[in-house]
Each structure stands twice: as C-alpha cells, then as structure tokens.
C-alpha cells in the first residue's frame, strides 16, 4: 500500500497471538505461520513480543545463502526462499541476527515473513498488522505514527560490529536513535570501523 510502513512495538503487545493465527490465513503460505512470537520469561513477567521479518536493506540471510535462493524485491521486501533453489541448509536460519527465518521440514524449504506479498502488492495491509488488537504490529503511514505515538520509530540496529538498517521499524523511546543490544555496542575501543556484516 503506497506510503505505508510496518512498525513493531513490543510494549503494546498483549500476547494474544492473533498475528500468529492470522498469518497462516494468508494466501501465499496457507496453513504456515511466519510470525516470530515469544513469551519473554513467563515466570517473571507477562511480557510478550511478536515480530515479523525486519526486511533488511542488506539482508544477511541472502548474503549467506549458498544457493542464491533469497531475493529482495524492488520495494524492499525480502521474500521466503525460492522453492526450486532452496537446499534447506539453514545458513540463513543461523546467520540472521534477528532469528527470523524458519526451516519448514515438511516443505524442505526456509520460509519467513514476506510482508504478505500477495496482499501488500495489491494495496492491502498485511494480515498480522490488520488484525493486531493492540496494534503492536501496525502498518500505517509515517505521518500517522508521528501523530499518534509517543515513541519514535527506529530502523537502525547494532549487533556488535554489525550495523543493520531495515525496512520495518521498531518503536523505541523518543531519545533513541538506534537500537543496540550488545554491551560491546556501548564500549569504546577506539575508532572502530562499522562493517555491514559480522563475517
């Protein structure tokens, strides 16, 4: 849908798993859900998180694929593996810094969120973001997000020395420019060079 972007806000997530259930209703991968969903630590907290693929500008999964089976489309969407090419080696599963791709044994193929390509390519919203009752997953315009949310969208992530920019945005505290999850990201070791991938 023109002008729409995808925003993920785990602080809104209520753990209902509607996204998980709706994903498998999507026509490109009927019966298989591509949502990544976690209870963070159910014993300690009710916190949950649901993610889609982040659709990296420079996708690690595609870089490590020995069969050249993972393609990024012109609109920035990174697709599931191409069935005729995928050899099921799981390189992508291991390499993705976000832990998104899944090997689907029955299909002998890596599958992952393709942003409901059958829907978004014809102007519909992705299934998960359409049904999400808390709008933790939202597919709206940047203007709408700016006008309605306290938090700020960020699409730059650091994993150690790997810096990744993505099509999908994470909602972060208003003063965060990028999201870093590794202590190494906060240490100072001189002027290190930022490399786009970690291998």
């Amino acid at each position, binding site marked *: 849908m023109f002008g729409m972007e995808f925003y993920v806000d785990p*602080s809104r997530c209520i753990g209902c798993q509607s996204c998980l259930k709706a994903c498998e209703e999507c026509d490109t991968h009927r019966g298989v859900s591509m949502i990544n969903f976690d209870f963070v630590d159910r014993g300690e907290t009710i916190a949950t998180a649901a993610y889609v693929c982040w659709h990296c500008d420079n996708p690690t999964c595609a870089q490590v694929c020995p069969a050249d089976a993972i393609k990024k489309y012109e609109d920035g969407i990174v697709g599931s593996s191409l069935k005729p090419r995928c050899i099921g080696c799981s390189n992508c599963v291991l390499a993705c810094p976000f832990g998104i791709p899944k090997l689907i044994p029955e299909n002998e193929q890596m599958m992952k969120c393709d942003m409901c390509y059958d829907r978004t390519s014809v102007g519909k919203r992705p299934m998960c973001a359409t049904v999400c009752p808390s709008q933790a997953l939202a597919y709206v315009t940047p203007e709408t997000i700016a006008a309605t949310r306290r938090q700020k969208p960020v699409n730059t992530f650091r994993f150690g020395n790997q810096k990744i920019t993505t099509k999908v945005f994470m909602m972060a505290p208003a003063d965060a420019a990028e999201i870093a999850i590794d202590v190494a990201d906060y240490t100072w070791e001189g002027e290190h060079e930022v490399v786009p991938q970690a291998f």
Partner: protein
Amino acid sequence: MAKAPPLEELAALYGPHLNYTPAGGWQGESSRGSETLVKTHCCFCGQQCGIQLKVRDNRVVGFEPWEDFPFNRGMLCPKGVKRYLQGNHPDRLLDPLLRTDSGFRKATWDEALDFTARRLRELQTKYGRDSVAVYGGASLTTEKAYLMGKFARVALGTRHIDYNGRLCMVSAGVAYKSVLGVDRAPNPWNDIACAEVLMVVGANIGECAPITTDYIWRARDKGAKLIVADPRFTPIARNADLYLPVRPGTDLAMLMGMLHVIIRDGLTDREFIATNTTGFEKTAESVEPWNPRRAAEVCGVPPEAIERAAHWVAGSRRTMIMHARGLEHHSKGVENCEATVAIALVTGNIGREGAGPIMITGQGNGQGGREHGQKCDQLPGQRSLTDPAARAHVAGVWGIEPDDLPGPGYTAVEIMNAIHSGEIKGLLCVCFNPLVSLPEANFTREALERLEFFGVMDFFLSDTAAHADVVLAGSLQEEEEGVTANVEARVIHIRKAVDPPGNARRDSEIVCDLARRLGKGKYFPYHEPREIFEELRLASRGGLADYYGITYEKIDAQKGVFWPCPTLDHPGTPRLFEDGRFFHPDGKAHLMSLAWRDSGDPVDADFPVYLTTGRVVSQYLSGTQTRRIGALVDQNPEPKIEIHPKLAGPLGIKTGDWVTVTSRRNAITLQCMVVRTIRPDTIFIPYHWPGGRSANRLTHRTLDPRSKIPEFKVSACRIAKAAAPGGGSSGPGGPS
C-alpha cells in the same frame, strides 16, 4: 433425564474433535478465493468485531478483515481469526437426536418436536405450568433472545426463564439501573481514546476484550494515565502508571477507600452532585469509616496507592472507569459496581466525551440479549415485568391479555436449585452449557440427572447436552440473520452467510415449530427473523432500550445504531446523559449507601488460599465452540493453575507440576505455572473446561442478593503438590 451416557462413546461421535483446516483444505477449495464476502460480526464476545466471512458453495471457508467497520477497524483476536472453523466441523449436529439406553439416535424433526411438545405438556399438566423452565443465552441474536422470552411466557406460560447472562454482567446491570436508571455503558468506545485518566478494575482487557487494548494504548500515547486494579498482573497492567494488586473479593474496600479520599480532600464536583444526583450524603456517610489505612488492610493495596488513585481519578474532567467480571462476579457485585459509578458521579465524570463509568459486557450479545425479555424479570425494551403499564404494552403487541403474562420467575442459578430440589421437572435449554458454566459443577450434574424431561437446542453436543432426552440441531450465528448489540449498545447486523448444514435448522424456525405444536402457533407466525425484529421494534417502543427507530437498512447505512433510538429519523444515542438528565423519573442519578460484606466462601486455616477464575484469550465461555477449533486449543490446550513462587516454593511446587486444588466442594488436579504475575495469596484457574478440569467444580453457589450472580471470582481453597494427573482428585467424574 438421567445420567449422561458413557462420555468416551459420546466423544467418539460428537467430539470435541479439533478442526484445523478450512473446508476443502489449505491448498484446496479454500485457496480458490471466495464467491462472496459476507460482512458480519464475530460471535465470540461482546466486542462483536466486524469481520467478513469468505463463502464458497454454501460453506464458510475463511475470513477477511473488515477494515471499514468503525469499532474494530479490521482488528481481531485469535478467536475472531479462527471463528470460521466452527463451520464444516465434524462434530456438527446434522439431525435432531433422541436419547436411547446407550446414547443417542438420529430422529426426524417430527419425532423430535412432537416428543418435546408432548413431554412439556405432560409435565405442565401433571405438575403445573411453572414446573418447566427455559434457559436462554446471551450469544443468541436479539431476535432469538426476544423469541425465547415470548416462547416461555406465551407458548409455555411458565414464569421461569432466565439466561446465561446471569453469570456475566448482571451485577453491573442492576447497579447501573439502580444508580443511573438504565442498564447500558453510557459511553461509546471512542471516548476511551479521549480520556486523560483510565481506571480499569477487574477487567483482563488484553485477554477478554482484546481489541479494546488499542483504545487504551491510543489514550496512553496521548498522555493518559492508566490505573489497573487486579489480583493478577494482566497484559495491560504491564503498561499501567499505577497497579493496584487488589485481593480477590475486596474491591469494594478499595473503592470505598477511594471515595473516602475524594470526599475527605474536597475533590468532589459539588455543583454536579447538587444539581444532578440524590443520595450523596448516604454514600458519604457509608464511606466515612473507610479511610485508606482501613481499606488497605482489607484489600491489600498500599494506602498511598489508594490515595494516589483517588487523586488521579478526581483530578481530571476526563476520567473513565472500566470494569468487567472481576468486579461483578461477587456476592457484593452490585455494590462494587455502584461504588464505581459513584466515583464517576461524585467527580462529575459522566455524560461527556472521555468521561464515564463503563461496563465491558462479555458475551457475544451480552447487551442485546438482556434487553428484550429473556431475563426472568424483564419484558422487551428493558421493561419491568411487574410494571402494569409495561405488561399492558407488551401484551398488546403480543395479542394476549396482560393477566395471561406470568410474573417474574427464578434466576439461572435458582432454576438449577429448583431442579435439584424437585420443584422444576422439565428444562428446555438453548445456548447455555450450565454443567461447565454454573458454580459447583457436581451440584449441577446431580440436578440435571433429576430432570424428568430435558431438551437442548444446540449446534454441537455440549457437555450439558449429553444429559438431554432430545437435542434439537440448531444453527450457528452465521446461519441466521439478526441483530446483536455490542459492548457500546451499538445495534449491529448479523448477516446470514450460509444455510444450516444437513437437517439442522435455524433456531427461530425450531422455536416457532415447537410453539405450533404447543397450540400457540398463531402467536409465532414468523417466517424470517426480520418479522421478529419488526415486532420487537414495537414491543420495545417507549421502553428504556427503545429499538423502534432501528431497521436493518439503517444499521447497514450507519454501521450500527446506538439505542435508544425512538423514531425512524433519530440517529441513535452513542453517549447517554449528555444533558445531565438520568433515566430515573426524577432525572437524577441515585447515589447509594455502600455496605461491606464478606465473601460467601471465606478463607480460613483449612482453606487459606484465594481462588479466582476467569478466561484465557483463545477460549470462549464454556468452550462448546472454541474447544473444537485446533489453533485455539493449541494456544491453551489445558487449564493451568497460576501460582506465585512465594506460595509454590515452600510446597515444593515448580512450573509443570501437577497440583491438587481442594475447595469446600471438591478437588481437581491440574498442571501449574509458577509466575510472579499473581498475588502470593491467590491462585487463578481458567474456567473453560469440563469434567475433572472444571474450575467450577471448586466454586460455590453464593449469590449476590440483588443481581443473583454467583461469586465466581473468589473461593477459598488449599493446594498441594500431586504425584500425577488425577492424583488426589476426589469426587466423581475425573478428567474428561
């Protein structure tokens, strides 16, 4: 009748089996796209989210979000996403069933209906008209609910009809009626997003009204403060600005403490109180002893937190207080709700955008299903069955003499008590699964076994229906047109998507056919639900819930019409009390004196732990429908006991262990989750399961004296680690 046949044999035939795939399979028929998209609503819960059902070859094969419907704008919880899988289900009843010695056999409609009519007449002849009772349900469309009320009173002439909404929000209904003069949430849901302070009491919104979450988050993103009071740290509590861990059964102490602070600190809206209310002195006097310290000692919330909540709530002109079953399922449920409404009234927070107390009705047609005559004391339009003018009006519409209208009968639990005692001999039950949903399940089972005649109309063989003499194969929501009223009292249009399968029939057809066999056919001449609705418009005309100005076409054009809607050119009433007038004859809101009472099942040395029950997000009520949908069962395959580590640790209980919970009624053994998200003195069990997994084997039958709601939300129990499944479980039955 008698005992249920062996459940294992029934299960092989009637389930619950799990349906995972759409008609025709994921890659088959359902993937060919749909012939039509039918704009209708989800049947699971009072939110009544708009949804489009994909229909092909008279079968529902999937869904598509309905983004133009304003209430949910495409949003759905997992129940909504998977609701379509209740169609084309292997367990679906395709023929009427008659009881045999070993189980059930298929019957023709003539056999089943003749038998039903004959047995009802025989019992009424032998024991009197009131020896048979009717149970209705709040998941029925409003037309069906109206029809059940008329059927009981005109076709059967019994005074005993009540419905499963008695287990839902009736405490709120009684409180709103007594204080505000009408039983309805006063505000449309858009007001939530406009509030500056939101207080959520006893409402697990993230799981029980999921799409309401977005309204709350929108308010928070605009800077609203969120207060959550609940014994459990619910999903929305995670983002609360103030969390009040209220002890089960003590909400009233907390609320009276807040009222005390508001009055003590001069935070009331004196002008509003003087102009628009009566009885403030009574309320003030009753809360005077409830200083925050005393309230804290009872409810387990710090005094400072009670003070802060009171100051926040009273400190804004845009405060909304939202509540649900957590406040209502108590033997003082009405007082709980009256106190909540009182907080809104004394701070002047009502009748404006973003200001008001609102109940979150739980059942599919929880609002519409309680307005038109299937409650034991009500006639259509929220009219009182004891009001001579109301009786004359409705009798006139129905073409009978007012004196022929029976008086008020028993409420749902009282009907079961009267069955148990032998006073009521026959029961016709629609859209109600009392064996799972009523408290003290073993008492309910004993009662069902004493019935001389038991007829059930349902689309699946529910746990209760296994006890029936005859089962009339009825219709799903999507198989008959009608209306419901959602949580906002927005009357919406349920469109028929498909015909009932096999020899199953539309519910209203079955009821009318039965009325004819009882010799009352001339009062039930309807061919289509629309004809019932047209009569309902007249019957409700001039009542509180006035539907006269509502038509199916107007609903479609406006995407819902909020009642009251007294004339055809009236747009409907999204927000009540905007002119400061309440619905009592004097136009005032009536504040009440509040009085503390202990729970009907107090904790003591033998039963030292509080037990509270509720829902999980993937299941609906007694699970008759949702325990048959694979994806929803996978999400919550079994009920799990939630226990705090402080309670579990000394007993050597760890996550995944089997734990026996014993109450004064019975004991059940389930697996547990050890979590820090519940009070250490309280355990939680979801109630959607039957047999040995039924939380309602443990609950008690104490009722609120006015609303007659059971006290599901607080029982006393003790817990012990069990060796294995079933270990330590006592009482008949066992896991099923």
